[in-house]
């Protein structure tokens, strides 16, 4: 009786689904869900880029009347800015690297047939998708999208009278983020359970590829941080709609009493940044894991210092929860607290520096193959260095007095999140496209895309450092009113021009992506000659990832150029290497 039960269950649960709806819409297959997240992020990134394009145009031509949009008013600029940040941080950087590639490749790289909870996985995608719809809806309601920035500081975000868009638009913004939190938590649950409980035989934690470590720690960060963001959102919704005063003190807007009293604006900032700082590590860790992977594969060398890399990922995750106050040095927080946060922040620079040294160490004495994934990995290192170096400036409160709220900050986080992390997504796409779609992307188009984006990103964001050093302030819909900012207008013009060219270059990527799905050169199962488990399976992988066989792992993930080996890579499932040096 028991076996009958099991067999029936097995047939029910693990036969590949039939029918379009079960196969592509409500699929339980982590590979399909990963692609769904990827395409959601693709739509989101183009939405976000479009918003920033409008912003760049407005900054240079504030009074210009655009076709269809007309003149962009200051409040519209601020709502573009708010939605740009929210869409990019949540629906691109927290979606594509983790929900997209993580969902697709974590189970395969650890030798599992799927995620631990496939139904939950499916729900997590559709929840995230719903969150995106609710967010975009904010543009179309009375008052439009909110203007309070992606950081949503209260009381500006808590008072509907404080500005256009702060009515229903702000409520939808909060609700969308709350929905996103739930989707992200469901995803984190799956990642953690799968990594801990479903690794194949021989796949010890210290034999996992660094991508898996990155996805695992990122999921832990999300697990601990998104609950706090959800709590902040609930309190803000209560302040806005139920008359509570968690964040709003006694005050007026335009001479009219708001009806609140006793709340603390700083409480919002503490809750938000307790989430917000781990969030930026969520955005960068998967890209770091992938960069390690790619530098190793394409230098034909093991990653330099695997253990140190693992410890660095863990340290970044852990310390990431202790530095949130560095966003609040000028907030009115106690200067002693600021000192403590500042020391911790310099501390978190250390594991990031170690990772950079190890990346350089991986290239050193390697045998580098300049495929398109490798170009983006090398580009990632360069951009991470330049973005990271501005961190120690901002981490010191004495310098932050001047630099806070200037374009120096924008340069810092865009170079790390908006470019380096995006380079990770590009690299992942070029690298794993053959495995996902069975074809290679076009190399010439890929390399062209790389050069335009690499040089273009520097052209856009390097000048922002100078703009900020000269005191150019962020979230200014135009620089015309303040004399010292008005003088800097030529820099804005240059940046906008660079943005036009760089954005245009992204169309090459999109074209390459869709064209190659149909017309790309057929890919073998392991075109890059890499060692990790996704490359032992068919291209594309079958429903249960390994075609009925359970892989058994004998080797670490970076055995390249092993002396005495017949070829310059040893798969993780190959017979074990005898002795270790």
């Amino acid at each position, binding site marked *: 009786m028991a076996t009958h039960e099991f067999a029936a269950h097995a047939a029910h649960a693990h036969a590949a689904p039939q029918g379009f709806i079960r196969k592509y819409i409500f699929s339980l297959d982590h590979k399909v869900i990963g692609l769904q997240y990827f395409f959601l992020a693709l739509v989101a990134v183009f939405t976000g880029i479009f918003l920033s394009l409008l912003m760049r145009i407005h900054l240079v031509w504030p009074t210009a009347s655009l076709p269809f949009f007309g003149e962009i008013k200051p409040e519209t600029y601020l709502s573009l800015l708010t939605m740009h940040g929210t869409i990019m941080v949540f629906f691109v950087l927290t979606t594509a690297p983790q929900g997209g590639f993580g969902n697709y490749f974590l189970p395969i790289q650890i030798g599992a047939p799927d995620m631990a909870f496939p139904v939950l996985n499916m729900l997590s995608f559709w929840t995230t998708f719903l969150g995106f719809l609710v967010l975009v809806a904010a543009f179309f309601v009375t008052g439009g999208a909110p203007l309070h920035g992606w950081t949503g500081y209260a009381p500006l975000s808590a008072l509907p009278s404080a500005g256009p868009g702060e009515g229903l638009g702000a409520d939808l913004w909060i609700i969308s983020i709350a929905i996103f939190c739930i989707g992200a938590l469901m995803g984190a649950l799956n990642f953690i359970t799968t990594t801990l409980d479903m690794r194949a035989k021989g796949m010890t934690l210290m034999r996992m590829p660094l991508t898996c470590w990155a996805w695992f720690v990122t999921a832990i960060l999300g697990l601990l941080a998104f609950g706090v963001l959800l709590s902040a959102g609930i309190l803000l919704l209560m302040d806005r709609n139920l008359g509570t005063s968690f964040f709003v003190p006694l005050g007026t807007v335009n001479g009219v009493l708001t009806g609140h009293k006793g709340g603390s604006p700083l409480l919002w900032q503490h809750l938000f940044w307790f989430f917000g700082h781990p969030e930026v590590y969520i955005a960068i860790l998967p890209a770091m894991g992938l960069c390690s992977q790619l530098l190793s594969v394409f230098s034909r060398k093991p990653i330099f210092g695997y253990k140190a890399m693992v410890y660095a990922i863990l340290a970044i995750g852990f310390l990431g929860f202790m530095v949130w106050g560095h966003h609040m040095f000028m907030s009115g927080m106690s200067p002693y607290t600021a000192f403590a946060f500042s020391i911790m922040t310099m501390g978190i620079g250390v594991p990031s520096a170690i990772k950079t040294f190890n990346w350089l160490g991986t290239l050193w004495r390697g045998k580098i193959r300049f495929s398109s994934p490798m170009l983006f990995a090398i580009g990632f290192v360069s951009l991470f260095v330049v973005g990271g170096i501005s961190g120690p400036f901002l981490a010191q409160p004495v310098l932050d007095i001047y630099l806070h709220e200037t374009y120096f900050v924008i340069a810092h986080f865009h170079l790390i999140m908006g470019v380096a992390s995006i380079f990770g997504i590009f690299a992942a796409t070029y690298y794993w496209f053959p495995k*996902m779609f069975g074809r290679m992307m076009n190399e010439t188009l890929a390399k062209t895309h790389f050069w335009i984006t690499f040089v273009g990103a520097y052209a856009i964001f390097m000048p922002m450092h100078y703009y900020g050093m000269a005191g150019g302030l962020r979230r200014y819909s135009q620089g015309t009113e303040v004399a010292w900012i008005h003088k800097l207008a030529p820099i804005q013009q240059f940046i906008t021009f660079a943005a036009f060219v760089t954005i245009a270059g992204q169309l090459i990527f999109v074209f390459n992506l869709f064209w190659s799905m149909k017309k790309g050169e057929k890919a073998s199962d392991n075109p890059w000659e890499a060692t990790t488990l996704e490359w032992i399976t068919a291209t594309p992988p079958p429903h249960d990832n390994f075609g009925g066989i359970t892989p058994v792992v004998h080797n670490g993930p970076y055995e390249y150029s*092993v002396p005495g080996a017949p070829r310059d890579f040893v798969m993780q499932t190959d017979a074990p290497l005898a002795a270790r040096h």
Partner: protein
Amino acid sequence: MASFTTTATLDEPQVSRGNQGGGPPVFGGGDGGRPGRELPDYPTRLRRARLGLVVALTPVLMLFVSFTSAYVVRQGLPTLDPRTNQLVHDWIPVKLPALLWVNTLVLVLSSVGMELARRQTKFAAAAVTAKQLGPVPVSGAGKMPWLTMTIALGLLFLSGQWMAWRQLAASGFYVATTPSSSFVYLLTGAHAVHLMGGVVALLVAGLFVWLRRPVTTRSIVVDVAGWYWHFMAALWLYILCLLEFAR
């Protein structure tokens, strides 16, 4: 210096034959009904579900930790009274309705019922898989409707909470009356929402009986719901203590 054994075979047989011939599917999903690996066995599924629950309870805990820190901060926060240019404390403690203590008793009883239901279903699943999975439950517990009783007590708790809210409002404390009253509604409301989720899980388990799903599956649902339920009871005790003793 690493060495490489000459007896190793590098060319493992190709692991699978996915769609390598004609146009590859856009999504690497369907290869037409080839049976995959075997479903993991009951102990593995139970362990995995329990691990999932521990992981899932972490953000729930973080939510209430976050609410607690907001509570503590707000309680101690002086605010600037511009009329006097002085910093004043404006925290007014709320007297909790006595009904909350009755509700607490109901919830604790439901937790007892929940544990009995959990063991009962586990025993039934063990009988089916013919393996010993834990301490043998009290014999004779086999037929009592513990699950139904737990659901009933849970619903009784939730309606009791609703009545307590009405009593609070009647005594003049609405959600926005004072910061302290805001937190009372917030904490009890958030807890009630989560407990409702637990009730839904138990109803699903009951549905599984009616749909004649395998008792092993039902046992996992009841086991996970059971630990969740105990967590919710402990959380409630914590919230009650915070609101009563840290006023």
